[in-house]
């Protein structure tokens, strides 16, 4: 029994300060991403979510270049980007792919510039890894209160506009007819989305933030159609995937003789992918059983 326990939790896991930071920040980020992501999936805005990830990559690398914390840039430019995307019309179905794609391309171009300039002008190392693919084990403990505060703001915004947002998500026309300020609600949602993507950039990197945003909600929405249940299930899947990813990355140090550990972001994203496939299996079996033979 003890052998099994130490095989799962390799020595020092619970004592490691890096693990403490990763597990707490990971949980906050997974919850915020899951709650936001359910709306993202229902509104069919995964692509906009991904583009915001790229915008926050430009922000994070720009922040490093001028000597700020990457989190400030991830969230700051993400929020500005979301407002701009709202202005140029991501809420309209026609043409929004194009607008999103244009913003995405420009943002990645800026990231390339900022990462290059940071590398040639300062001693800061590992910028590409940190911005694009995440460096959760290298995040300082002081970041946790900031992450929590931003997460609470995003959740508060979604909580406030939750019902009108759901209505305008399901049917914008009915929502408008009932006097819901669809435009304002949509903009507030975009801001919450920007914050959530910015936060998950910290854990799995800007490029992979979409995985944490839409993966758990997509799996959850296959399992249940009720909003509250879907959000709760998405939170559970997201937190589990993040924690398991942290654990596997920690354990991977002991897998090879050379003690090379593997990145957290890979494990988190891989677990989410497997979770999504598994939720599909369950749906498929459910369909087969309910069908009269």
């Amino acid at each position: 029994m003890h052998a099994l326990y130490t095989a799962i939790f390799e020595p020092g896991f619970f004592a490691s300060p890096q693990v403490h930071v990763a597990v707490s920040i990971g949980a906050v980020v997974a919850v915020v991403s899951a709650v936001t992501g359910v709306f993202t999936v229902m509104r069919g805005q995964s692509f906009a979510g991904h583009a915001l990830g790229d915008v926050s990559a430009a922000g994070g690398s720009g922040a490093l270049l001028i000597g700020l914390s990457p989190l400030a840039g991830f969230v700051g430019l993400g929020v500005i980007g979301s407002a701009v995307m709202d202005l140029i019309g991501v809420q309209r179905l026609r043409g929004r792919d194009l607008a999103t794609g244009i913003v995405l391309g420009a943002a990645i171009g800026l990231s390339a510039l900022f990462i290059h300039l940071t590398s040639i002008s300062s001693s800061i190392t590992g910028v590409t890894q940190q911005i694009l693919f995440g460096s959760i084990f290298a995040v300082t403990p002081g970041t946790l209160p900031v992450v929590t505060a931003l997460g609470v703001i995003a959740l508060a915004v979604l909580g406030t506009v939750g019902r009108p947002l759901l209505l305008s998500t399901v049917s914008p026309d009915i929502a408008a007819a009932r006097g819901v300020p669809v435009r304002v609600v949509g903009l507030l949602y975009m801001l919450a989305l920007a914050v959530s993507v910015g936060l998950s950039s910290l854990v799995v990197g800007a490029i992979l933030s979409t995985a944490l945003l839409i993966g758990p909600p997509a799996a959850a929405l296959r399992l249940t159609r009720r909003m509250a249940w879907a959000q709760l299930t998405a939170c559970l899947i997201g937190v589990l995937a993040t924690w398991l990813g942290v654990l596997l990355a920690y354990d991977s140090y002991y897998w090879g003789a050379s003690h090379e550990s593997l990145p957290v972001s890979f494990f988190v994203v891989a677990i989410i992918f497997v979770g999504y496939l598994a939720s599909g299996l369950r749906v498929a079996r459910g369909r087969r059983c309910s069908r009269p033979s």
Partner: protein
Amino acid sequence: MFKPMMQKRIAVAAAAAAAVLTGLAGCGGHASAASSGVINAVGAENEYANVLSQIGGKYVRVTAILTNPNTDPHTFEASPAVAEEVSTAQLIVQNGVGYDGWINKIESASPNSARKVISAQQVLGLPTDTQNPHLWYSPRTMPAVAKAMAGDLSELRPAHRAYFQARLRAFDASLKPWFDAIAQFKAAHPGVTAATTEPVADYLLTAMGIKNLTPFVFQADIMNGVDPAPEDIALENGLFSKHKVNLFAYNQQVTDALTISIRENAIHDGVPVVGVYETMPTGYDYQSWMMAEVHAITEAVTNKISTQQLK
């Protein structure tokens, strides 16, 4: 006791600088590829460029590519201007072991059978998969590279062979105080241990008889811009809190939030910090730079004094 050596060093540096200046003045633009006049040469890193101008003297115009001691050389990307400079050079001195892979690309993109290329890796006969590329910290590197430089310069300008050989002898002699300081430290301080962020000064630490207790995987992760494992971070911080090391060699050119927090832990636990550089800092020549690092390490071990930055 460092005074006379310093003076000698300054004299050598001044002679080298003057030689480069006269070289530049005599050149006035791109010299022809003929076997007379000034040789256009490139040192991929400024420490090799510095030694090259010490050996080549007035017959060489040396350009150094990596010169900024405040950036990470591992992330360097060559600009078109650098490519132009390299492709027109008659003599190139580079480190090898993948440290300056960009220069190999420029060389193969601009084939020139008359061009001479000296790679420290090849001169030392090291395999390509050598783990630690910071060869110039090893006391056996520069004498061998300088000898190769004198040889190639003599082939490019056979008439000045005696001149190059004389400068090579002067260079070799100027390294003696450094060798002596290393040997002296090794004899006087057995069993010294160190922690590092990167394998920058590892060859020098080994030569001084200092054991580096930081796992190589951790050093390689920092060097390659990859996040080290939490296990290795715990091990590294433990070296300070358990007072297992006499000094902490900190690479000033490759930093992030993690290396800074590790340095804070070292300072907190009273472990003296020695700033080490990959690129030769401004105001030094190769010999005075290496001497300054040995001096800083000696101060850390004997007097527990930190030298975070070379000035």
